[in-house]
């Protein structure tokens, strides 16, 4: 009790009384309306998407309304393109032709009018390939641009297989009868067989087969003549001629060779061996031979009659 009276009463002092009230100023009518407008979804979308799109389109339209500016833009774009295409990495400096003879490569250089150096963007390889393939002497052409600015042209030439003596002179044909080139003189290519006659080029594969079949008498063959644009005659030296049928000509030729081997038929004095009727091969002897034959027959008859 004593102690309690002695202790001074504890007095709490509260001081946190006078803080100013929170300020929340009222928005003006305009600010309030703008705020509400801003919260309108359509308006927001318009402002976020519609307005920029409109501005871009409008400004571009305004800029491009002038013809001069449009042309300027186009030229600028072309210039940029040009400079890009004409960078040294894209330039083609020269043309290399592989697999072609001198004449063919000269021809190619002639028909491809290229001014080197030229940008590879300006080369239309497909067109060029078609042009080159248009040459008679070219079977197949491959074009590509090699590193180092080289236009590489690889050519498969047509190989001449026969000489055709046509109406307009001598021509070289390949195995399929396609023209390779003209030939000045027969003696330029004595290694190739000679064919002649109307439409001889159509039967070149058959002719080659016939020649292969006739290889035992190769040194005697002068050439092949297309008759009536449908069948072959084999012309041998000494004016002999083997007339082959329209179909089965190779078989017929083999038969001739077989007969020749057996009886040395062709070594005799025959003019023609006619195999056009396969069941009835016909031989025509020369006049002298026929006379001699008659003499022999008469002698034989005389001997017999004696």
């Amino acid at each position, binding site marked *: 009790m004593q102690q309690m009276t002695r202790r001074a009463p*504890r007095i*709490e*002092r509260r001081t*946190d009384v*006078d803080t100013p009230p929170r300020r929340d100023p*009222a*928005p003006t009518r305009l600010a309030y309306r703008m705020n*509400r407008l801003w*919260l*309108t979804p359509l308006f927001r979308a318009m402002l976020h998407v519609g307005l920029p799109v409109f501005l871009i389109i409008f400004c571009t339209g305004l800029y491009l309304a002038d013809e001069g500016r449009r042309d300027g833009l186009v030229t600028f774009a072309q210039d940029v393109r040009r400079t890009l295409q004409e960078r040294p990495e894209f330039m083609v400096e020269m043309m290399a032709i592989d697999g072609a003879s001198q004449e063919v490569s000269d021809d190619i250089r002639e028909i491809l009018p290229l001014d080197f150096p030229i940008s590879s963007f300006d080369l239309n390889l497909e067109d060029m390939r078609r042009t080159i393939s248009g040459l008679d002497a070219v079977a197949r052409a491959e074009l590509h641009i090699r590193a180092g600015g080289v236009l590489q042209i690889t050519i498969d030439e047509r190989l001449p297989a026969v000489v055709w003596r046509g109406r307009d002179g001598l021509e070289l044909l390949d195995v399929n009868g396609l023209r390779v080139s003209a030939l000045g003189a027969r003696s330029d290519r004595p290694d190739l067989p000679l064919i002649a006659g109307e439409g001889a080029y159509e039967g070149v594969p058959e002719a080659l087969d016939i020649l292969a079949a006739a290889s035992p008498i190769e040194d005697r063959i002068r050439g092949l003549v297309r008759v009536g644009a449908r069948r072959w005659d084999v012309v041998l030296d000494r004016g002999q001629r083997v007339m082959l049928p329209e179909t089965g000509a190779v078989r017929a030729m083999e038969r001739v060779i077989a007969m020749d081997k057996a009886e040395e038929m062709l070594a005799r004095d025959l003019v023609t061996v006619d195999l056009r009727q396969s069941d009835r091969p016909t031989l025509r002897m020369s006049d002298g031979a026929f006379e001699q034959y008659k003499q022999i027959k008469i002698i034989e008859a005389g001997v017999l009659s004696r």
Partner: protein
Amino acid sequence: MTDLYQSQRAMRRMRKQAMDRGVVAILDVGTSKIACLVLRFDGPEQFSASEGITSLAGQSSFRVIGAATTRSRGVRFGEIDAMQETERAIRTAVQAAQKMANVRVDHVIAAFSGAQPRSYGLDGMIELEENFVSEDDVARVLAACDVPDFGAGREVLHAQPVNFALDNRSGLSDPRGQIGNKLACDMHLLTVDAHVIQNLLYCIKRCDLELAGLASAPYVSGVSSLVEDEQELGAACVDLGGGTTSLSIFIKKHMIYADSVRLGGDHVTSDISKGLQVSLSTAERIKTLFGGLVATGMDDREMIEIGGDTGDYEHDRRTVSRAELIGIMRPRVEEILEEIRARLDAAGFDHLPSQKIVLTGGGSQIPGLDGLASRILGQQVRLGRPLRVQGLPQAATGPAFASAVGLSLFAAHPQDEWWDFEIPAERYPARSLKRAIRWFKDNW
């Protein structure tokens, strides 16, 4: 009555539109603060007219996505006093709530506590044409209620059918489809001063908002603060607001009486301000921080610096004991409670089966109020807080937000009022097309 129908139905249409859009604002125009909540109606439970009252009375169908309060300006006794000021305050609250919700609101449901609400009990009776009750009969019996002469310049704010009686069976909440001969109804009619509504309408219109509903604050704070059995058995909700203390009595889930006393927390503040010679804002702060109603010995020793800005040392270093503060506050609070007691007595609250009294509103946070109130109002007093609703920020869950929360519930699930029923055909204007259609329907 027809133009009342028109305006109230227009508001109901507006509310429907707001529901369709999914966003509606709640505006509680109080004397000390203006609260704005933004509700989004997209909860799991959508509205369907056929199902009637759904679980939780529609609470789960919305969530609060924006909430803002601002110090109220230009409002006195729950009525708009300076319109420009109030308009600015509403703008502030609405803008802040919109900012939080990040959505624009166009429809607003408002509540106010003042305007001298006056309750009337109406009854009407009709003979049924057929021997069962149709929708039309309900409308007719509502129309048959004889409306008292509530005077010029008054406007009906609520007209809620409270009870239906069929022959000698009373206490029906929904008589439709039931068999009987005579239908009677009781209706609770709440009128307020018309000019207050007009001022509020004007303010809201000036803020570019559409009014989608109006409610009286005592009603909506009762809706949010009374629990279900209290509403069922009979209870009074006392909302101690800033400028007014409002009172609503509920029984059988219907409000049967509402009134307001033009005294509130602001009067306590002004008493403190006058008694301690401090500014109103300091007085408000002292009240909220140190206020109380029951003095103890400890309070004599607790000194409060009341401060000042004069530069005079003696004046600025004044202190006051908490007991003195309580001595200033208590008589005023007693006066308010006495006034409430008088209103309750006048309303015949003693005759209710249960006499629960729930104190809510910002003023109910004064420490010791429950003790004081139980001495004046009766033993069954409790302090009430509003219902929890989804998404409500913690700062807005206090009893001061009872009417704002109640208004949200009201927006989600409004009670059927008179104007929600069809106008009976004989009340139509004589040459109305609707009347002709009705006549054809009835005769063929």
